């Protein structure tokens, strides 16, 4: 250190007022930090991720709550702008099966409180997938693979009532609203990511087979379906038959990919118990006379 390089006066007129001047090396670690910047990155990333997750969660809950409460006409308008989903193969058999399914849906609709303006349209798909689904605009689709395994109209009515309950509760709207809202939030974080998420949801709405419902929504649909079944048939035989049929499907344990219904609707023991509990609570018999399947649908047996 060069100390006191000049010991002359601060003021030229007062040489006695001496000042010792020196330059010292700058103190380290005051104006800058020696912390590892990776630590800071980890904290900041963790914090922002937590914030985004919390926001996405909150927005998705809010959207899921709001979407089913918007007037149905908006959902209908959106569905009308997409290619129709509830279609049937353009064959005599396809049209006949669709007619029978539509007739059953219309009968059950009279026993449900569907949103004003909702016209349930049932489609039929000649595919071995064991599934049925409900989607935007009052549309629902049944696959041959499912129809071919049903033993009575009661079982079919249970599936139909379950899907129609999804329509009644606007679950497709909720799922779509949730997806779009999450996409919008993500677009704030990353335009690309958000656009991808929103576009993904909307294109899925176009195909509409992949709108996923929550466990609560499935439970609500089950309960509503049981009420319809009780009113239409006077017993819940269709529900218990359906779940036993499904549980006994080959590959039911591993939930084989073609058995979509099992993957999306886990057939747990608790679900059967819930049926029995519901029957007890509402004083509805669990068993009764089954009605046969309409002949066109019965003809699909084993195909």
């Amino acid at each position: 250190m060069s100390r006191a390089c000049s010991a002359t006066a601060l003021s030229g007129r007062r040489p006695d007022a001496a000042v010792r001047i020196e330059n010292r090396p700058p103190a380290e670690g005051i104006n800058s930090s020696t912390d590892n910047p990776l630590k800071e990155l980890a904290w900041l990333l963790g914090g922002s991720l937590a914030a985004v997750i919390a926001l996405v969660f909150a927005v998705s809950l809010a959207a899921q709550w709001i979407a089913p409460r918007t007037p149905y006409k908006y959902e209908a308008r959106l569905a009308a702008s997409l290619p129709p989903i509830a279609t049937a193969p353009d064959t005599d058999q396809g049209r006949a099966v669709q007619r029978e399914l539509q007739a059953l849906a219309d009968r059950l609709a009279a026993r449900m409180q569907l949103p004003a303006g909702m016209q349930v349209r049932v489609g039929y798909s000649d595919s071995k997938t064991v599934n049925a689904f409900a989607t935007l605009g009052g549309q629902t689709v049944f696959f041959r693979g499912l129809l071919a395994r049903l033993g009575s109209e009661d079982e079919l009515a249970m599936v139909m009532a379950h899907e129609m309950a999804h329509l009644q509760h606007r679950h497709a709207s909720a799922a779509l609203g949730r997806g779009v809202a999450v996409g919008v939030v993500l677009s704030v974080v990353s335009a690309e990511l958000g656009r991808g998420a929103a576009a993904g949801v909307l294109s899925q709405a176009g195909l509409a087979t992949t709108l996923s419902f929550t466990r609560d929504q499935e439970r609500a649909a089950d309960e509503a379906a049981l009420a319809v079944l009780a009113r239409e048939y006077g017993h819940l035989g269709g529900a218990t038959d359906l779940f036993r049929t499904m549980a006994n499907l080959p590959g039911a344990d591993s939930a084989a990919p073609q058995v979509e219904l099992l993957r999306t609707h886990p057939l747990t023991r608790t679900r059967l118990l819930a049926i029995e509990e519901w029957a007890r609570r509402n004083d509805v018999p669990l068993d009764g006379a089954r009605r046969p399947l309409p002949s066109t649908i019965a003809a699909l047996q084993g195909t």
Partner: protein
Amino acid sequence: MAELIQLGIFLALLTVGYFAGSMIERRHYASIRKREREYRDVLAFMVRFPFDRTTPQRAFLVHGTVVVGADYFKTFVAGLRNLFGGRFRSYETLMERARREALLRLKAEARRKGSKMVVCVRFETTTIASGWAPAMEVFAYGTALVPDDGSLSLPEPRKGVSRLLGDGLVRPPA
């Protein structure tokens, strides 16, 4: 797939930014500390007037200027920091290095011109780029002093014009 590629590019840039930035920073600090020892006999002060106003001095402007740029890692961390607030640690070291470097360059110029004393040192910064590649200019300037040995012949001032003497005092024309 496109998202994965984007994420990959982003992570690669972040990694390159971190390792390159850390290495450059380490080397720069080492170089700064070494030169600060070398230039410790050139004194720089913020005072407006020379300490020694009894010896005739020659005074001239010296300056040092540095342009620093942040690496991808620093910019990303600072971007996240923007959400939460607090110390922008990643930029603090950057700006500290820039100021110390600018002062060293000022001292280098002063020494080359024979001065061991610079007063009235000031710093200025200018943003020259922002966004994903922020860069700043740090500019240090000051008045270097050299004891006047009389070898420099000052031109006679014109009549009525003040004569600026090396001691920084303006005296009326004789």
